[in-house]
């Protein structure tokens, strides 16, 4: 670590940013290399990144997981974990070189000159300290102030981030606040030291669409009002195009393209950017548009509609689920899914959509109401014994988080073979192996990966295992609980195509649970909008998207970000 000479001080850095404004960039990164030492040798996560952020500018860094976008930000703030190391390059803040700054210098820099907000704000807050005190702590880290003054300043900041009832919330603990409010508290802490640069690392991932919009609008307003610069790191091209003045695209540790969002997303030059833009769902894209190269050339036709008079594959009547303590998660929901039909369940967190998917999958018992499968009532069979029901293999589910839904001690083969052994009665042998390989093949999982364990596979590969497992026993109803929420857009595109072709080929009924309206629009013919455990609107895809009737549906549609900007939102 270099001492004095290049030593930046908080005041100097801040002053430098202010006076240096017109003269040069606030932050400049030149030819940055970051390497991680792992057991398989040294891995270069960032390989020669150069970028600059001018005072007051918002720079977006977009890329998929593993592209090095977060590592770049962590290198700038020097929050790299122990294994990571800046191997080459220079990081300058204002006029000072902070590449080799020591801990003391960095501490005065953090918060006062550069601050960060992270994904999952609740985890970033201390759970046993009231948020007001935490904000006061953030101020006190850079200047000395008394308890009373700290509280007043914290209150001002809470007002600045537009929290409702700031006088009440200042004494609240993080678990008493919603995810969106926690992120507001994080923002309040981030601006407490009046920094000139805010680094936002996936600030709205995990928040509901409507919350995402209000939080990002707030951040943008605060940035503009205080003349701060922002580095917005995101995988969401819609977010970047809406809020950034300039966007850099990263792939495998390198910057492949840099431009204004209008130019970048309308006429991408680099093949990777082009692929990324194509894979991001827009207001008018179809599943086939997302990944043109990998679409099956002869997609099977729509499955024939079932003859009138046949009972629907799934019929849910007045379904109610109350959890302990009288929390009503689902309050009287009725809908139908026909064979070969795809129905979307849309709603924000707390809408009861995941509870419905588990009720229908018979993993939990309903409090009231009926669930009919193929005309037979299955809701009254207790979930405890449903594993032995002959209908168990007809209703399968694909879970949200591909990592979390695979047993860490099973390899891919065992994961897919497990339901076959249990439900189809296959024993170890050629028939089992053949069926596992067939399912893996249909789900697009390379057969060479069947011996691998989940932690040795990528998110997309794990999602394929989850799908292969779900289709292994030839179910008739497939419940998809946010199947692509944890995946990169390019992987999402391929998985969506896969699911759609499975539906056509096998006449599968799909119950598609999602918060992503763009995805639901492409996948589903009929859409059900849920709020607080009740259906607020139900209708065909076109009706919902072009003529939404309920104000809540309209609000959801308005909050969807499209990469070409908010002006072209459908409707």
């Amino acid at each position, binding site marked *: 670590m270099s001492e004095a000479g290049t030593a930046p001080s908080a005041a100097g850095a801040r002053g430098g940013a202010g006076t240096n404004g017109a003269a040069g960039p606030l932050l400049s990164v030149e030819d940055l290399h970051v390497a991680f030492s792992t057991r398989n040798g040294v891995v270069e996560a960032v390989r020669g990144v150069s970028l600059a952020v001018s005072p007051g500018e918002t720079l977006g860094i977009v890329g998929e997981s593993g592209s090095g976008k977060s590592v770049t930000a962590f290198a700038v703030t020097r929050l790299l974990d122990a294994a990571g190391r800046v191997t080459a390059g220079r990081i300058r803040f204002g006029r000072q070189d902070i590449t080799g700054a020591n801990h003391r210098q960095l501490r005065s820099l953090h918060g006062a000159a550069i601050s960060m907000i992270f994904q999952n704000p609740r985890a970033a807050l201390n759970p046993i300290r009231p948020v007001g005190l935490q904000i006061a702590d953030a101020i006190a880290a850079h200047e000395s102030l008394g308890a009373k003054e700290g509280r007043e300043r914290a209150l001002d900041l809470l007002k600045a981030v537009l929290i409702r009832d700031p006088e009440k919330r200042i004494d609240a603990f993080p678990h008493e606040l919603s995810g969106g409010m926690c992120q507001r508290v994080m923002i309040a802490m981030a601006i407490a030291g009046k920094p000139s640069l805010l680094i936002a690392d996936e600030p709205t991932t995990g928040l509901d669409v409507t919350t995402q919009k209000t939080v990002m609008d707030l951040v943008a307003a605060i940035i503009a009002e205080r003349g701060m610069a922002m580095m917005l790191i995101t995988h969401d091209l819609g977010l970047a195009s809406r809020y950034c003045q300039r966007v850099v695209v990263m792939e495998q540790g390198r910057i492949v393209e840099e431009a204004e969002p209008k130019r970048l997303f309308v006429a991408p030059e680099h093949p990777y950017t082009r692929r990324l833009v194509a894979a991001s769902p827009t207001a008018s894209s179809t599943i086939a548009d997302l990944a043109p190269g990998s679409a099956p050339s002869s997609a099977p036709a729509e499955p024939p509609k079932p003859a009138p008079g046949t009972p629907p594959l799934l019929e849910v009547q007045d379904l109610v689920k109350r959890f302990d303590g009288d929390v009503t998660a689902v309050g009287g929901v009725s809908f139908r899914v026909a064979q070969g039909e795809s129905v979307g369940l849309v709603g924000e967190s707390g809408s009861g959509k995941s509870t419905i998917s588990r009720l229908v999958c018979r993993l939990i018992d309903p409090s009231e109401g009926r669930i009919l499968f193929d005309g037979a009532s299955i809701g009254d069979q207790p979930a405890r014994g449903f594993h032995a029901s002959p209908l*168990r293999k007809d209703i399968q589910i694909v879970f*949200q988080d591909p990592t979390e*839904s695979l*047993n860490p001690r099973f390899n891919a083969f065992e994961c897919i073979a497990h339901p076959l052994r249990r439900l189809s009665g296959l024993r170890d042998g050629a028939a089992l192996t053949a069926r596992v390989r067939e399912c893996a093949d249909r789900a697009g999982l390379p057969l060479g990966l069947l011996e691998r364990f989940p932690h040795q596979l990528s998110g997309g590969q794990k999602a394929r295992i989850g799908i292969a497992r779900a289709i292994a026993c030839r179910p008739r109803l497939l419940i998809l609980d946010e199947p692509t929420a944890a995946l990169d857009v390019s992987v999402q595109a391929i998985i969506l195509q896969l699911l759609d072709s499975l539906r056509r080929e096998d006449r599968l009924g799909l119950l598609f649970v999602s918060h992503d309206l763009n995805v639901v629009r492409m996948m589903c013919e009929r859409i059900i909008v849920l709020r607080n455990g009740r259906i607020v609107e139900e209708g065909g895809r076109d009706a919902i998207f072009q003529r939404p009737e309920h104000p809540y549906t309209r609000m959801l549609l308005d909050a969807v970000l499209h990469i070409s900007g908010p002006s072209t939102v459908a409707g």
Partner: protein
Amino acid sequence: MTSATLRHTVWVLRGNPVTAVAAGGAFVLCLVALIGPWIVPHDPIASNVANALKPPSAQNWAGTDQLGRDVFSRLVIAARLDLAIAASAVTLSFAVGAVIGAVCGYLGGRLDRYVGRFVDILMAFPLFVLAMAMVAALGNRVENIVIATAIINLPFYIRFARAEVNVRRNAGWVEAARACGDSHLSVILRFLLPNVLPAMAVQVSLNLGWAILNAAGLSFIGLGVKPPTPEWGIMVAEGARFIATGKWWLVAFPGLALMLTVLCFNLLGDGLRDILDPRMRT
């Protein structure tokens, strides 16, 4: 698969020299316990009063005791008994405790509360005194030392398994197993337990050392193993009478054997977890 496991084990041990030394020590201990009777230089039981209380020499490496028996031979022979008591007690409490704990952690509810209170009551006793009482009541036999040691270890396994299963019971792969046709019982036995084993291996290893101390302690106060059977605890107890007269080797060598054994198993714990966890492999 086995070669991958071996390679992984070697990798963990190389990055962890302390674990490697501990593993080596544990291996030597087990070997000694297995082949002890064939490698001892003297008969551990045969007394020879003419040769009593001799300090360590080329003839008797660790000296002789008050009856002229070779201390080194007795140490070697005792390894089998001490390790066997510890291993069977730990296996017993591990098997019973892991299943009870896993069932409680998975099902929750009334059963969980009752078992939890029972465990609390058990832990409220001074555990060594509880073991003493049990051995005294059940009879002064080796099986009863095993049972008493197993029971006083049980609370730790129940709590540990309960906590580890509880955090995983709502994991996606547990729900997935249910959707794949597994009953609750099969989810516990075939999914949850294998996943908490690596974490419990640490507990097992720490516990082995503790169980050896416990068995030796019981023998030391005259419960359990009876003389003239060689046992580290008895040897320390008998030797303690001669410390005042400067016959240090009677206590020092069995004490050292106990200390090194316990140290070995304690150090092994962390390394074991790394070896057993498949996620640590790449």
